[in-house]
């Protein structure tokens, strides 16, 4: 097992190098740069001299191979450089946002699991009844609704309902507070995006849980368990559900990885200062330094998540052995 983990960790290195090469050169194919956005973007007069100074200061006129060595070398020296937009260290820019995105990803995943698992099981047990149809409709709607629309509707709904009930419009806070400083304030801000995102991500997991459960419920050992006279709850929970978990865990883990780097729209709509919003800002500002490190972070999250999922398989299904 340890050898397997070591091998997988070593395999991460070429994956990360490949990603680094791709992101570095693809970014530089884009026309325009951060200095033009920064100085000319406001419509005020911007002199070419100032733009040239800006490019020089940021190293944008250095040869490409030197820029690439700076970028990759940062991972060995521990200095990831500074954001081309704010001048702040990249590590600080990411650290500030990481905790919010991590918390939101965990909350959204919990919401998704809490919706998907019971509904998926229920739908499978009650296959082809009105309950099944209702659950399936609920999940299809979740897949179909765009996140940004759902987010905006949640905010507007809160404003309209609170206005109608209390005479004062209420919306979630737009400033992040740490749960360690103010748990209630933190939850009143993050529960809404977590619900909006969790519902959307639960839709796929619900359908996956349903189909996996249907498959397992038709297995011989389930029939045997029922024939032994076990109660249906025991059959479903102990014999069927655990064996149906493999594909569900895969989906949920991959979705978690997506949430860590892909909450772009939700973070914008709820004004959450997370990684997704930082991604959009960095790309919009042509902040190469920040964008390439963010991409590398997301790649790393995906690679690690995949490894964790593979290891979880062995725990969930003792028949699986890695060597």
């Amino acid at each position, binding site marked *: 097992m340890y050898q397997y983990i070591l091998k997988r960790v070593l395999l991460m290195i070429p994956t990360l190098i490949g990603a680094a090469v791709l992101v570095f050169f693809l970014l530089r194919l884009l026309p*325009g740069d951060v200095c033009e956005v920064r100085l*000319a973007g406001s419509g005020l007069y911007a002199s070419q001299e100032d733009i040239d100074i800006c490019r020089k200061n940021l190293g944008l006129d250095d040869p490409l191979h030197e820029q690439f060595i700076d970028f990759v070398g940062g991972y060995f020296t521990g200095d990831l450089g500074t954001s081309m937009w704010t*001048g702040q260290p990249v590590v600080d*820019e990411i650290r500030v946002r990481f905790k919010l995105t991590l918390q939101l990803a965990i909350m959204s995943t919990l919401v998704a699991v809490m919706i998907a698992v019971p509904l998926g099981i229920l739908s499978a047990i009650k296959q082809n009844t009105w309950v099944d149809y209702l659950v399936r409709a609920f999940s299809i709607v979740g897949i179909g609704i765009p996140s940004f629309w759902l987010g905006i509707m949640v905010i507007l709904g809160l404003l309209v309902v609170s206005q109608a009930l209390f005479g004062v419009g209420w919306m979630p806070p*737009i400033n992040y507070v740490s749960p360690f400083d103010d748990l209630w304030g933190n939850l009143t801000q993050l529960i809404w995006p977590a619900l909006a995102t969790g519902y959307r991500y639960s839709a796929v997991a619900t359908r996956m849980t349903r189909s996996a459960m249907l498959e397992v419920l038709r297995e011989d050992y389930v029939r045997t368990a029922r024939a032994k006279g076990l109660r249906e709850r025991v059959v479903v929970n102990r014999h069927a559900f655990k064996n149906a978990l493999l594909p569900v865990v895969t989906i949920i883990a991959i979705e978690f990885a997506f949430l860590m780097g892909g909450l772009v729209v939700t973070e914008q709509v709820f004004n959450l200062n997370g990684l997704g919003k930082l991604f959009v800002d960095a790309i919009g500002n042509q902040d190469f330094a920040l964008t390439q490190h963010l991409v590398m972070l997301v790649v790393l999250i995906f690679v690690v998540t995949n490894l964790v999922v593979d290891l979880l398989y062995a725990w969930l299904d003792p028949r699986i052995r890695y060597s």
Partner: protein
Amino acid sequence: MKKGYESDPSAKGSGLASRTAPWLLGMALAVGFGHLAQAQEEIQRGGVLDFVVAGEAPSKDGHKETSYSVVHPYAPFYSLLIRVDPDNPQSTDFVCDLCVGDVPAPTNGGKTYTFEIREGVKFHDGTPLTAHDIEATYEKIINPPEGVPSARKSFFSMVESFEATDDTTIVFNLKFPSGAFLPSLATPFNWIYSKKDLEEHGFAWHEKNVNGSGPFRFVQHQPGAFVDGVRNDDYFHEGQPYLDGFKAIIAKKMSVRIQAIRGNRAGIEFRGFPPKARDDLVAALGDKLTVQESDWNCVLLFTPNHKRKFIEDPRVRRALTLAVDRWGGSKYLSRIAIVKTVGGVAFPGHPLAATRDELEEIAGYRPDLEASRAEARQLLEDAGATDLVIDLNNRDVDQPYKVVGTWLIDQWAKVGIKTEQRVRPTPQFYAALRNSYDFDVSIDFNCQSVINPIADVTKFLGSSGSNYGQYDDPVLEKIYADLERAGDEGEQRRLMRLYEKRALDEMAHLGVTLWWYKINPHRSYVKGWKIAPSHYINQQLDNVWIDPSLL
């Protein structure tokens, strides 16, 4: 009285100052729903103002940056030598901030300005502020060492020299008398830095650090989230500021900023909202909302690329401008976009701007639209461009770029011009506009801070660094050179008309679409702030207060 607030009977909110230039009366409109009269209210002290800002400041150094996202959160930490009157920002009268008394009149035939500096002013770190700090600041702005960026260095081309003759006096000597000097000094980015900071920490220190002498002290900046400031109890304008502090919350999405005001997560956004957002907020908040509106010193242009086939022909460029119905567009577009006012090259309503009668003499502004369009078709036929297809470069920003771009496509179609619009994200839009010139016609804009038409109209000069039409017009350059040195307003006005006629009509170098219109709906409890014709000015917040009874 609510906790944290106290009233100040000696301080009264002012209405429009008596010295408002008559031409500016009526340019700003303030509508409080249920709270129409702001004048003579008893100012309340205390409270923290939360406001939203649409972008994150690239750095904290006003001297090198050009964005309002720097001004809104950081201007309250700094002072200026002179500034636009915060109680009457629609006026072009300047008032002293760090200088004493009235802004001095020039001597030496209009070439020397001597400023007396306040005594007893301190930077937030306790260092006394003297004329030497102002000299060091302007040295950085006007004569930066090599490699140090200064975004407004070119504004001061008329300055010969300047020197702090003692702790309380600074003298500016000009090469020639210039009406553009005082507006340049009053530019809201010219924050006064401490000479000690510049000498000890270098010219890049202010990019990440704040030490001003303004009404608020810097507390913290949380990247991507907010900037916090607290009251500076040693502020030199007696009794001010009224607020205990402020929080500038960064919110890039317009829907968030609008809902933040509706949901009272913020009291105000200083840049401006489109008309639909105003209407929605008015409907939702009623008398809890006040709306201030003003003409905006920003104009949306279209820039023809003079190096492109057909576009190089002035007849084709004239056809492009003749096809546009500005008077009609003003009516319709102002319902959905942040544009409204029909104008020429100079800020509408300014003494140097064209009157309606004068505008109607210019191609594209004439009252008989059908005659203009018939002339456009004829010009296209004469130029052999009857099947003209143009490549329009546009910016992927709704307000007002895409809205006006779409409108232009329709206008040009009326004379048979087909348009292929390429909407690009901001970096790619600028790369096409400034570097590759990959367009036949591009949406362009000219957004300035202090109203300074003589400086602002340089945009139309082929030699200007911010002109992307790729042309050289010595006639226009000569008119401008005369305008820059013209002594009296009558002569300036005459030359401005010649300049406008040449740029917009005879050569049709650039096309003016419509001037922007600034709409600031804000919570009615936000008092004291008065809309300016620019989102860059009047942002020190020293005269802003919160009425707790309206919270």
